[in-house]
């Protein structure tokens, strides 16, 4: 079981992006997905950083794919999606419609915002040429096991959401803009003020969700640190780690080492943040099962 770094969900200044991928190149992971995953309006602010990051990561021996948007609606977004297949990089489809632009036998990966819940869907995607599939975050271990086995039989690497605020929902509406009484088209890029998203709590102050532009995430950081052995024996090929501010290379190193108290170690690297692992246990995603 190796490690895959997912596309960054948040809107960071280009200097932050540059430093993030530069510092990450030496970390112990196998592959990485780069690209704008959440909002097409953000891309012009940082896309100049992509070629350099790809070069640095490839030079460090990492496999690199480029991600599509998770929700594609506008004509401009459809054109951007088609252009991904001109990069020569494998494309990770985060919205199924990206497949419509794919040249025959182009290598592609499937991200966790595409609905792969069963072997029939895995088969269909494999028949179209999918090489890797990161399963949806809400799947329990029982389903993950069946799909990991099916993937192994068909030569498709099956990956699970290993670490990061879980991507729960997408909307036509930008909740970040709405929180500032702005419409999506006049957002003034307010999501850039929150490098780890904007937290949403219940009226009683319980942490609950995180708003990130048109995307809604779980506020507690989802981690499978306590479930690594079960995932490994289920035949899961890779864990996906989702970029976040702070010492991310240290988190990557911790997952790579996968020591006996990984859960405690991960918690130690996330001071002041809640962690959760309920989805894999078939419980509420925000629940935390210890031991």
């Amino acid at each position: 079981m190796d490690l895959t770094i997912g596309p960054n969900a948040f809107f960071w200044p280009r200097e932050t992006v540059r430093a993030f991928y530069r510092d990450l190149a030496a970390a112990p992971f196998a592959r990485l997905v780069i690209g704008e995953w959440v909002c097409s309006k953000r891309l012009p602010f940082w896309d100049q950083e992509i070629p350099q990051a790809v070069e640095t990561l490839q030079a460090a021996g990492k496999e690199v794919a480029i991600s599509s948007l998770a929700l594609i609606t506008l004509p401009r977004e459809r054109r951007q999606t088609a252009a991904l297949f001109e990069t020569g990089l494998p494309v990770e489809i985060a919205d199924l419609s990206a497949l419509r632009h794919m040249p025959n036998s182009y290598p592609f990966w499937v991200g966790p915002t595409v609905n792969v819940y069963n072997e029939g869907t895995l088969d269909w995607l494999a028949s179209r040429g999918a090489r890797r599939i990161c399963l949806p975050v809400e799947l329990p271990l029982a389903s993950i096991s069946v799909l990991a086995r099916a993937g192994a039989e068909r030569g498709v690497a099956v990956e699970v959401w290993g670490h990061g605020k879980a991507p729960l929902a997408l909307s036509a509406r930008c909740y970040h803009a709405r929180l500032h009484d702005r419409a999506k088209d006049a957002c003034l890029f307010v999501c850039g003020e929150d490098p780890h998203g904007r937290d949403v709590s219940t009226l009683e102050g319980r942490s609950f969700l995180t708003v990130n532009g048109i995307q809604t995430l779980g506020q507690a950081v989802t981690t499978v640190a306590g479930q690594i052995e079960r995932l490994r024996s289920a035949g899961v090929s890779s864990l996906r780690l989702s970029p976040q501010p702070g010492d991310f290379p240290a988190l990557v190193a911790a997952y790579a080492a996968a020591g006996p108290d990984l859960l405690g170690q991960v918690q130690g690297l996330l001071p002041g943040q809640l962690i959760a692992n309920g989805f894999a246990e078939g419980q509420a995603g925000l629940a935390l099962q210890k031991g």
Partner: protein
Amino acid sequence: MDLVCPAGTPASLRAAVGAGAHAVYCGFADETNARNFPGLNFSRAEMAEGVAFAHAQGVKVLCAINTFPRAGQQAIWHRALADAEAAGVDAVILADLGLLDHARCHHPGLRLHLSVQAAAANADAIGLYAAAFGVRRVVLPRVLTVEEIASITREVAVETEVFVFGGLCVMAEGRCALSSWATGLSPNMNGVCSPASHVAYADTPGGQEARLGGLLIHRTPKGAPAPYPTLCKGCFTSGDQTGHLFEDPVSLDAMTLLPALKRAGVTALKIEGRQRSRAYVTEVVRAFRAAIDAVEAGRPLPAAQLQRLTEGQAATTGAYAKTWR
């Protein structure tokens, strides 16, 4: 334009047919459909009887098999497809790629509609489903403006169906795990959202509290109408702001947009609410059938009185108006 109406029970099916539905949609009483609520839906025998009753009145029956089959248990969903075809339904409404592929291979005569749960939000996605599986109609997700719908109908050779009344998802349907984050049960896996089994109400000095999975979703003053604690319409806090951060407890009413939807080339109009009462279905279907007949005949829309049927007594035209975003 055809009016597609909810039938949560055989009684609702007869009510919808009697009130002027052109088609009704319904599902089997299990996890294969996205309204898997206790006391709702159809047995195999009821489905066949419902089809016979509807067909005798010239009304079509569409069967929703629109959850995502569980890994290792696909046979349950495959059986639902075979049983729907045997019952004589006019189409099945599917969302899962694997199930669509199975239907195309094993039930080539069955007309396929793409569920809103498939979240096909642009012409490329719709074109993909049409080319790969022969999908004939797509139920459009509630993330599109009327202008975007018009451009889709110009571009694809597939019929389009849009929601015009009832519950309003503010997230892309079929791609939302908010409910499973809070409760462990989701629309995609279990056919439920913010399930009643996880709801608790309590009277407190501060008002009536509604909880979902133990999380406080609403607190309403005593005597005020308490909306159901649907997650995305809850009252939350972020920074110095407290309120309905995602959406107010409103529901969709797009009746005034019917002329625009007709101009946009929409084939069918859908009313949400298989969980609703027979009386509700009758009233909404009658009002929308009158409105459609008026639009088709070039007459002005009749004055409608549906406000009191909308959730929380407030209605919106949702994403159909660009300002909603």
